[in-house]
């Protein structure tokens, strides 16, 4: 398999930071209970920061001494977060307000530091960029999906558009509801991936058996 395709599929599905690695739980729970728009906004913000930090860290991987790599990564990530914060405050003030404190907390988001340490510091700039985009997209899609579920069940609306006026299950606008949706989403996602892996293994075994039979004949 092409290495870029593998990196992309890993970030999006097989190593999805939200559903498979359960990283970045704090902003996930905070944003999905708010609205689908906030959840998607948080996802896209992390995508931009993650991609840029992966690129910079990968480019500097031979320059930064190993002993001070973590402080350097944190300074780079914090700088990017501050920069994105300034951009949002200037151009997207509504999103800036809805993300609140969780915007600044991206500095300590495990996904960003995790990918910097586990991937960007060991791979080329191109690979690191693809990894950043894939993981960022994986995070964004996961948050948006759960945000849609929570917003629809919690206030009967989708992306702020009221769909069902009298339908409202208040718990889904609360942290408890967000926990519930997150848990169920992890279970469903893991089940689907497991089923897919199982069918892939069955197919591979079947193919191997047929090849063996052919060779024997």
């Amino acid at each position, binding site marked *: 398999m092409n290495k870029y395709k593998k990196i992309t599929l890993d970030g999006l599905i097989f190593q999805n930071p939200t559903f498979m690695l359960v990283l970045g739980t704090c902003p996930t729970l905070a944003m999905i209970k708010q609205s689908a728009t906030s959840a998607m906004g948080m996802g896209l913000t992390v995508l931009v920061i993650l991609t840029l930090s992966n690129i910079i860290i990968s480019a500097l991987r031979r320059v930064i001494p190993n002993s*001070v790599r973590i*402080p350097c990564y944190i*300074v*780079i990530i*914090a700088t990017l977060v501050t920069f994105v914060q*300034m*951009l949002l*405050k*200037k151009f997207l003030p509504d999103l800036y307000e809805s993300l609140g404190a969780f915007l600044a907390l991206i500095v300590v988001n495990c996904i960003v530091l995790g990918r910097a340490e586990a991937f960007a510091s060991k791979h080329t700039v191109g690979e690191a960029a693809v990894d950043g985009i894939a993981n960022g997209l994986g995070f964004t899609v996961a948050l948006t999906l759960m945000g849609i579920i929570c917003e629809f069940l919690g206030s009967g609306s989708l992306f702020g558009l009221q769909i069902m006026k009298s339908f409202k299950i208040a718990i889904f606008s609360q942290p408890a509801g967000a926990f519930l949706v997150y848990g169920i989403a992890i279970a469903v996602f893991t089940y689907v991936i497991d089923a897919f892996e199982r069918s892939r293994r069955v197919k591979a075994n079947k193919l191997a058996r047929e090849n063996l039979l052919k060779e024997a004949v």
Partner: protein
Amino acid sequence: MTAKQFFKSNVFKCLISLLCVLLVSGVFLAIANSFLEVTEEEMFKRQFNKQVSAVYDGRTVTPEAADISGQSTALSSSTIQKVWLIKEENDYLVQAEGKGGYNGNLTVWTIIKMDTSLKAITGIRAVSIYAYPDGELVGNISAANLNLFAQDYKDGIVYNYGDKTDPSYVQTNASYSFTAICNAVNGSIEFINAFAGGIVKEDPFEGFLYREFVNTDKDTKYELNADGDVVFTVRTKPNAPAGYFTVEIVVGTDGIIKKYTVKRYGSEDSHGEDKTEDKYNEIVDKMILTYVGKNLKYFTDKLGEDMAYPGDNSDKFEETGASRSNYLCMYAGAFATANYQKALDKLTTDGGETNE
């Protein structure tokens, strides 16, 4: 380790790398900040478009800054910061900082409807929160809560929605913030009345000190008794969760308190604490006894010249456990003793003033 060895060592390399990253980041952010900084003007435009334009149902309005220099902007419970005239609608937009929030003051925008001559207030069009310090539970204050200001407006109204002991109390779970909003709106009305030259309310307590926690709009008065002493009836403002107190203080020669009586207790049962209203009242009763025979110096020695609230359970109170109630009673004491001479002068020259 020699200097040469140090400069060749890994430690030096690490230090330089870290410093370089910090330096580049700092310079980058400084440059970015100069381009991306949100100016006060932008902030105003943004808030105006978001909070005010909606009030006019899409009609185009242009705010024109009013010249308020030379006006008295520091009011007893609020400070007027800016005023704009919205000519198209004969409205004034007032930006006022209301005192009494949980973590500080709240900045509030009040749109005041005026008559065509811009001389008299005809109502409140809208109230919105412009800025607030961290920790304020303003999220609990709904649009419906803020709409009450417009709905309930009448001539001479003094809003008290945040005061739990007032009949107009509104449950928001953000009493402090709502009290500050009320203060800002009341101040805005008071200021516009004076500024527009319409109904100028005479202030019987003009020049009096320590008014911040005294409700000079309601019940507070002073008069002479048969012994020639000044009898102050002081209704304090609430200091949430404590409600307002009404006290009677007899001040004699040299501004010394002769008698201190509580007419209305403002203490309330505190959430989750094993203290009833009565227990708080007992503490207050014990404490006010110590005020008899004291003058202003006693209060300012305890709480400073500005009589600022020293915080819950401060050792500056004679009795602890009802800090906020104690503070209100001390404040009333300071008000009476500090203004004794002024009140006496007024009483002997023009028969005294009341504001009931």
